[in-house]
């Protein structure tokens, strides 16, 4: 699902950037900007805010580069910063979001009367993807983030554990619970359509 990025090169660029080589850091930004943005967007749900937070993430990373240790994977370290930035933004909101399990205003609404040009399978696909997006937003943050890291970023349990600062056993059980929660939402809301 994710674009393959050579971690060895990442670490070389990061080591150079840490010594003050700004073009090396710019290479890292270009390599990771879409991944970081995608993760933050799915955590936050607002495109404009996610753009700002992605910028903030890379600026924080630039300032914190002297703290990065070459034995840690750069991408994991960057995702720790992106995650903390997103969590801070969610805390700042200080209100509970009520997520509608029907189609939201930012999504393409599926009009049952306007299905003629769409093949049935495609319609079913769109409905299912729309439902998954809404379900993700309705999940508790700790379940949402672990699903995103595994399913969208294709991270190993070891990398997820490092990013979330938990042990691999917790990754295993939390991820399973998150998947069960999504399937429960599917059963509860998907079959109503």
């Amino acid at each position: 699902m994710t674009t393959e990025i050579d971690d060895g090169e990442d670490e070389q660029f990061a080591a150079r950037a840490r010594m003050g080589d700004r073009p090396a850091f710019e290479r890292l930004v270009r390599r990771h900007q879409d991944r970081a943005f995608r993760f933050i967007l799915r955590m936050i749900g607002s495109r404009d805010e996610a753009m700002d937070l992605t910028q903030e993430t890379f600026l924080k990373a630039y300032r914190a580069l002297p703290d990065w240790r070459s034995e840690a994977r750069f991408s994991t370290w960057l995702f720790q910063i992106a995650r903390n930035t997103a969590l801070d933004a969610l805390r700042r909101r200080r209100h509970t979001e009520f997520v509608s399990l029907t189609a939201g205003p930012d999504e393409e609404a599926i009009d049952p009367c306007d299905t003629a040009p769409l093949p049935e399978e495609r319609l079913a696909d769109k409905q299912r993807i729309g439902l998954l997006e809404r379900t993700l937003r309705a999940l508790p943050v700790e379940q949402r983030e672990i699903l995103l890291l595994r399913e969208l970023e294709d991270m190993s349990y070891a990398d997820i554990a490092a990013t979330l600062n938990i042990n691999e056993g917790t990754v295993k059980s939390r991820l399973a619970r998150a998947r069960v929660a999504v399937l429960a939402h599917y059963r509860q809301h998907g079959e109503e359509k």
Partner: protein
Amino acid sequence: MTAHEPDMIALSAYLDGELGVTERRQIDAHLATCAICTAHLAALQTLASDFDRLPQEKLGFDLVGVIEGRLAAAPRPPQTKPAPRWWGLLPTSLGAAAALTLGIGMGSILIGGSAAMPRMAAMSVFDTLPPGGLCLGPESCYSKGARK
């Protein structure tokens, strides 16, 4: 893992390829005979393919162009230097100790020994009685009987 209570933690890790060889074989064997667990695994696989179909969101512009100025202005912490070793501090500490010893030695020469005695002798010139035989007070010049 019984047929009626699927172990979702194990099935989820099985799906991700995060189980050891032994555990994986056990689940393979169980799935061959348990329709319920096979159905749950299929649901997990469908969920994973749903995630694959989510739109690949992109930032849509070169972030470097946006943050370039802020990177240049961003305060960078100084490069961390390794902590000095104890022998690195040796010349400084030796110098400090030598200066202290020299100071104490010179001080004791100036205020101690033979230099102190003449000063004490000179001080003894000033007696408690004023010079010229002047009275200190009426009590020392007149006896009690003379008063009467």
